[in-house]
């Protein structure tokens, strides 16, 4: 009996230790990633990186200014399209949704969220690039906005539903009608959560390269408008990293460090804003 108990205790300690090891191994990958990017990228991030155009391999002093501006252009445009649609759809789901139709929208939003980003890219290519006969920043923005819509809709819905019932009833009892209640009471009460969801959504799409590969394509120079092929940081990282040139690899590391820093900072800021304990939708 004691031998059996000793074995049970041993198994207990071993398995629990194994679980702890799993947790620390998985979490430490974040630090490994950060470490490698800092080690390889920090030396290549210079003023030139932010202010100069890309140069051919072998020439020193090139940067990715056009890709940084291009990324900002594409993401801002996508945000302007995607956030309002997602936000209002989220209000519909939380406040007005009937049974069947709201269930359908919710289900389809989750479905849209699960579609691989490369497939979204194909769609944007078919509806914008093919009719226009050229690649454009707009097509890239459209692809990214389609990824942003379901994320925003579902997170907005979730945070609206967390607003206590008593607040709605109080407003309605004072004689406000439903949309006034939503606009003046419910949305302001859920403001922090909704903002967090939006920032996380925008951070997520700004790191996407796959939907941009054949929509906004790439550009070695400044693009002059939304209907032109435009460089973006994620696509640049992909092209530089898979090239055969040593100095382009350094540029890829620098761009990777800058992109990761932006995305992680946005994430940390967003999650700091939110009240503790509320879980975020994926």
């Amino acid at each position, binding site marked *: 009996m004691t031998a059996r108990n000793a074995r049970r205790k041993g198994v207990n300690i071993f398995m629990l230790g194994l679980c702890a090891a799993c947790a620390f191994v998985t979490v430490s*990958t974040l630090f490994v990633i950060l470490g490698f990017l800092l080690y390889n990228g920090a030396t290549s991030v210079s003023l030139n990186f932010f202010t100069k155009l890309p140069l051919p391999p072998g020439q020193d002093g090139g940067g990715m200014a056009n890709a940084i501006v291009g990324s900002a252009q594409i993401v801002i445009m996508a945000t302007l399209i995607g956030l309002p649609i997602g936000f209002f759809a989220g209000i519909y789901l939380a406040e007005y949704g009937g049974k069947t139709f709201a269930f359908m929208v919710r289900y389809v939003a989750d479905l849209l969220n699960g579609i*691989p980003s*490369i*497939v979204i890219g194909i769609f944007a290519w*078919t509806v914008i690039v093919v009719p226009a006969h050229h690649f454009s920043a707009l097509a890239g923005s459209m692809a990214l906005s389609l990824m942003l819509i379901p994320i925003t809709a579902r997170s907005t819905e979730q945070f609206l539903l967390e607003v206590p019932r008593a607040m709605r009833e109080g407003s309605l009892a004072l004689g406000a009608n439903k949309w006034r209640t939503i606009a003046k009471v419910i949305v302001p009460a859920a403001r922090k959560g909704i903002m967090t969801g939006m920032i996380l959504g925008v951070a997520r799409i700004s790191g996407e*390269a796959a939907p941009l590969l054949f929509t906004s394509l790439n550009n070695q120079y400044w693009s002059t408008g939304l209907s032109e092929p435009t460089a973006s940081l994620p696509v640049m990282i992909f092209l530089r990293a898979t090239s055969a040139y040593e100095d382009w690899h350094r540029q890829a590391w620098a761009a990777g460090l800058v*992109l990761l820093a932006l995305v992680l900072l946005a994430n940390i800021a967003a999650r700091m804003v939110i009240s503790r304990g509320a879980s975020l939708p994926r």
Partner: protein
Amino acid sequence: MATSSATLTPGTTIAPKRRFGGDEVAYFITLIFATVILLVTVAIVWQLWLHSSPAREKFGFSFLASKLWNPVTDQFGAWPFIYGTLVTSVLALLISVPLGVGAAIYLSELATAKLSNALTFLVELLAAVPSVIYGLLAIFTLVPLMRDYVGPAVQNVLGFLPLFSGHIFGVGYLTAGMVLAIMTFPFIISVSREALMAVPREQREAALALGATQWESTFNAVLPFAKLGIMGSVFLALARALGETMAVTMVIGNDPAIHTSLFAPGYTIAAVIANEFTEATGNTYLSALVELGLVLFALTIVINGVAQLMIVLTTKKGSAKA
């Protein structure tokens, strides 16, 4: 008082005019935006179907089973890509499921609330790292590591198996699977952790009171209760892995052929679309790539549907959050 409350039965409107004020407008505006979500999704399916028609008409269902991918002779088959996608995703899950579930058990059962929250925060940051960054790191760290150290070491021991035979390039199925494993465990951890935390406290206490060790309680009383939720997280991770593009494209090796060896270079559906779409010339070539997109779309939809269902079922069952 009694009479006035009798006239205010549900359904009676005191001032009918007010119902046509802002409320109706707000309702329709939000309804329109909600409908956009439906329409866009339908449009995606429609466009994929439409633009893949030349390939579908030319090859029919043999497209799925054919091993030939030759743009020069206009012969296209999807099997090498489907095979590569499935092999890399399964490899990824073989690594990430044990790691992820183990970590989730630690976070929900063992760690203090403070530590658990801090670690979960880091895991969620890990999930936010862009795919192309994983690819960048994998190209310059994991690929040489596999080629020079891990690959030869594994081959020394298990080289007699066809799975580990052949030349080691560094890029290939196994490397892509490992990158995918790192990319998918954040999802497994955070969803499984929630499923485990939804298991009622009594479940643990009853097992411990019967004299079970903490591991026995976790394994026999808690895990079975959260089984569906954990399975859901696995399917969610699988759907992510199937559709993952950039990181895989950078380390898969880009060879449209089928190899038994896991060290051999291969190709996945998402990777071939990413690499060849802008270079594709000719209608058949392009539509074959779009049809691959359609196949990927169908695969992920089915897997995601199963995942959502499982997660909904567990969270309903274990409503008492610990």
